[in-house]
């Protein structure tokens, strides 16, 4: 029907124009700036340096440490989110007691501002006034300086990411579970398949496409993590919890090293694109079988 009404252009162009303007200008601006040596403080006029910014970034150990930190946070947090979220979705779907009540409560964290969540986390992890260390004392464990030692701070950030974004996995997996046909399970029950066999043979494979999408979305989003870290540790102690976005922010907004920051954000973009393409390429054969 109505395949070629010219009014379709009126419908689509406002959105396309806004996204083009807000997406393409910054892209071109950063791309061109990333090949220049350009500082605002102290003011230096732009000078073409070719791939100089990229080369010096790639040689800097701090860059690689930041990449490693960001990857660790993203991969570990998303793995835990997926397992816990899937388990909770299965439990909710099987109507655990209190299921109605928890449906709203369990989804709450993902709608809350990450900066506020990070503040709450700082309270909970506080060594003297926080409830967590009191619990540790109660069960006989030593009090831990959660946010001031490198490894614990990283673990705390991952914990907060898991706390905040597991609900997203629950939501999506629950919606996926509701689309599964009942008759397959009835057939499986007739053949006396155990619950685990049913999960392995039916539920998991049938939810593979949505699982792939959920993990993909969460990985991409986790790579951009900034607000939580900004409030919880500020990247510290030292630079042990600094993420890519925070690093770019420090370089750009504190040092006003424009060329360098642009190159950094472009490298970030390349990393995400390469990563996303590999992920999709790896998953494609598995997904197409299901179609």
């Amino acid at each position, binding site marked *: 029907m109505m395949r070629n009404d010219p009014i379709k252009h009126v419908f689509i162009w406002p959105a396309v124009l806004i*996204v083009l303007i807000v997406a393409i200008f910054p892209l071109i601006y950063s791309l061109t700036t990333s090949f220049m040596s350009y500082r605002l403080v102290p003011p230096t006029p732009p000078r073409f340096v070719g791939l100089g910014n990229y080369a010096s970034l790639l040689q800097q150990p701090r860059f690689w440490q930041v990449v490693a930190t960001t990857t660790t946070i993203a991969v570990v947090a998303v793995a835990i989110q997926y397992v816990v979220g899937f388990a909770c979705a299965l439990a909710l779907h099987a109507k655990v007691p209190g299921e109605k009540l928890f449906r709203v409560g*369990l989804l709450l964290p993902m709608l809350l501002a990450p900066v506020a969540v990070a503040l709450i986390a700082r309270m909970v992890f506080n060594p003297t006034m926080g409830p967590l260390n009191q619990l540790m004392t109660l069960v006989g464990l030593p009090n831990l300086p959660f946010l001031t030692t490198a490894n614990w701070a990283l673990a705390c950030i991952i914990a907060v990411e898991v706390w905040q974004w597991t609900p997203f996995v629950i939501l*999506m997996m629950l919606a996926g579970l509701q689309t599964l046909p009942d008759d397959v399970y009835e057939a499986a029950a007739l053949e006396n398949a155990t619950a685990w066999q*049913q999960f392995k043979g039916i539920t998991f494979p049938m939810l593979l496409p949505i699982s792939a999408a959920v993990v993909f979305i969460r990985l991409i989003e986790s790579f951009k993590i900034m*607000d939580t870290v900004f409030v919880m540790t500020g990247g510290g102690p030292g630079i042990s919890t600094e993420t890519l976005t925070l690093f770019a922010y420090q370089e*750009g907004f504190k040092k006003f090293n424009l060329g360098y920051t642009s190159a950094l954000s472009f490298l970030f*973009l390349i990393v995400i*694109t390469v990563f996303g393409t590999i992920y999709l390429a790896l998953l494609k054969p598995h997904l197409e079988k299901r179609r």
Partner: protein
Amino acid sequence: MSARSLSSIGPVARAAIVVGFFAWAFVTLFPLYWVFVTAFKPPPAVVGGPTYIPFLQFMPTMQAWEDILAGIRGDFANTFINSTIVGLSSAAIATLLGAMAAYALVRFEFRVKLASGLVFFALALGLYLAGTNLLGLGRVPSMGIAFVAALVGSILVNRLPAPGPVLGNDDIIFWFVSQRMFPPIVTAFALFLIYSEIGRSGFRLIDTYWGLTLCYIAFSLPIVVWLMRDFFAALPIELEEAAMVDNVPMWRIFVEIVMPMSAPGLAATFMISLSFVWNEFLFALFLTTSKWQTLPILVAGQNSQRGDEWWAISAAALIAIVPMMIMAALLSRLMRSGLLLGAVK
């Protein structure tokens, strides 16, 4: 159904599942309880070690809220209004424009040549470089010229019988969604610089309503297009076809038939984009300084101000999260009607 309900599993496993589930529910809800009670604690009940139960371990006070209202910890009233205005208007505009685009992408066929996309990028980049380096124009004028020329050029190329692959509706949707993959720091930092340059030529964008809203609209559009496409695709086409036969103009079909039929979807999409804008931190950090600061910036600043006054910090955090909690309750009522199913299929 029986196969997937808890009754088909052994009693030990069932107990383990229930215990595990309740443990997670506790982990999820405890921090929220904690921030609620802390916001009503008197300072000694915070500093002297953790206290848990109001009235038993401490007497609730309104001290923290009085401090906030008195403006000791920053201008919360104004910031709250800013967040509300920016959030509501950008979510509304993004939902409207995104829904229009999604509808067009569901009901009409679009064909964009890959060549025309490449021409757009090449022209925009080339003319911008030529404008700044060869013609000696400023960055902003050359961007404007480059953009218009690239747009005209790519539309012309699309008309010509150019070789190469042709992109369809799915590719356009992918293009929209892929904008969300972008690390926002690329956009935020460059927008900050571009806004400052435009500001130097007399048109202020940093720390203004339009500067922030424009960027939030663009930031929400990909999600809106993605969600609304599924809602529209699920609509029965017969009503629209009947209206077509009666020669009702397209825009009236959209406003009077399609929009009312997808009202729950529009509401959910509006709320989801509102929550994104309300909680957004990075763009607000770069693009506002004082007048149009939003809540996340003010809340993040509580950390360093006046030390660890956790009772007041809790109150500040609550101001940022309570509106979203109310919205979550509304949203979950919408979702119970199986609203998200379409987005998943």
